[in-house]
């Protein structure tokens, strides 16, 4: 079988993301856990904030799904996307289940209301979510390259490091059980880029979108680490600007 057209690009994006993957702000959390362990308050903040992000993937993928039309891509691409949506939903439920099981929240309603679990518009999390949602108007292979070969590669790496550092078997399991799906998402992204990114202009768009997604994900991780460790949150990503008609 001949090589697929986007093979070199997929490899380039994955290798670049891998080279950056152990330099995210989560390393600070991992170091802190290795030193002093993870107390209940920090664990609640960590799981709660990750749960909030996972919930937002319904909104992101909803927007992306609207951009898929009949006969624009083979059914296989749509199957892979639907698989990714299901996986993300599973991870969202895993986090919520952990919040309830560990007694961090008594009910789902409490989990939604708690500062760890509520969605705040003026946050790096929201900035990252809107950044991904904004890719809805781009062709599917480009947005999949942006997410699956960018932040997903970073996520798998910090999650593996975090899992090693966490002693609590329950919490360890929450992260460990996501590895298979996360690896699969990277593989799916690789495949879609290999097969469908054929033109130089598309390759450039993939590089650009991947860099933007990683930059905004990095900001979210900075905010997450500060929140978990009880530090002051990093400066907002952009100066606030008053918008008027």
């Amino acid at each position: 079988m001949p090589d697929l057209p986007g093979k070199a690009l997929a490899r380039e994006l994955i290798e670049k993301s891998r080279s950056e993957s152990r330099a995210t702000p989560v390393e600070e959390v991992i170091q802190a856990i290795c030193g002093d362990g993870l107390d209940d308050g920090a664990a609640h903040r960590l799981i709660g904030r990750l749960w909030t992000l996972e919930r937002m993937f319904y909104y992101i993928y909803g927007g992306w799904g609207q951009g898929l039309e009949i006969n624009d891509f083979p059914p296989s691409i749509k199957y892979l996307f639907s698989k990714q949506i299901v996986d993300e939903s599973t991870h969202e439920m895993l986090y919520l289940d952990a919040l309830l099981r560990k007694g961090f929240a008594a009910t789902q309603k409490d989990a939604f209301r708690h500062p760890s679990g509520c969605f705040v518009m003026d946050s790096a999390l929201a900035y990252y979510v809107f950044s991904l949602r904004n890719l809805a108007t781009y062709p599917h292979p480009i947005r999949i390259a942006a997410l699956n070969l960018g932040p997903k590669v970073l996520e798998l790496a910090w999650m593996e490091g975090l899992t090693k550092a966490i002693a609590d078997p329950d919490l360890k399991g929450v992260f460990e059980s996501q590895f298979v799906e996360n690896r699969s998402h990277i593989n799916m992204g690789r495949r879609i880029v290999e097969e469908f990114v054929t033109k130089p202009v598309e390759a450039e768009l993939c590089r650009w979108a991947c860099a933007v997604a990683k930059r905004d994900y990095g900001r979210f991780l900075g905010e997450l680490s500060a929140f978990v460790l009880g530090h002051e949150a990093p400066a907002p990503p952009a100066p606030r600007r008053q918008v008027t008609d």
Partner: protein
Amino acid sequence: MPSLKIDHERCTECRMCYIVCREIDINAVYVALEPLHRIEIDLQKCTYPGCTACLMYCPAEGSIVEVESGRSMVPPPPEAWQEA
């Protein structure tokens, strides 16, 4: 008799082959109990070339390889469905 294996360089680990194989009760495709939990094919249970269901449903064409020839397999033509 020719047999099949997974090319992990190409496979996306989406598990469609696993679902299909289980659905038709052949159960040759399984999740290996190794650290990466990758998909593998049990040659004792696989009925290839009698059955090619995994090839028909795999979304990442070329991820399944014929062991003896090393050929990356592609879905059989639609006639194969009708003949079966």
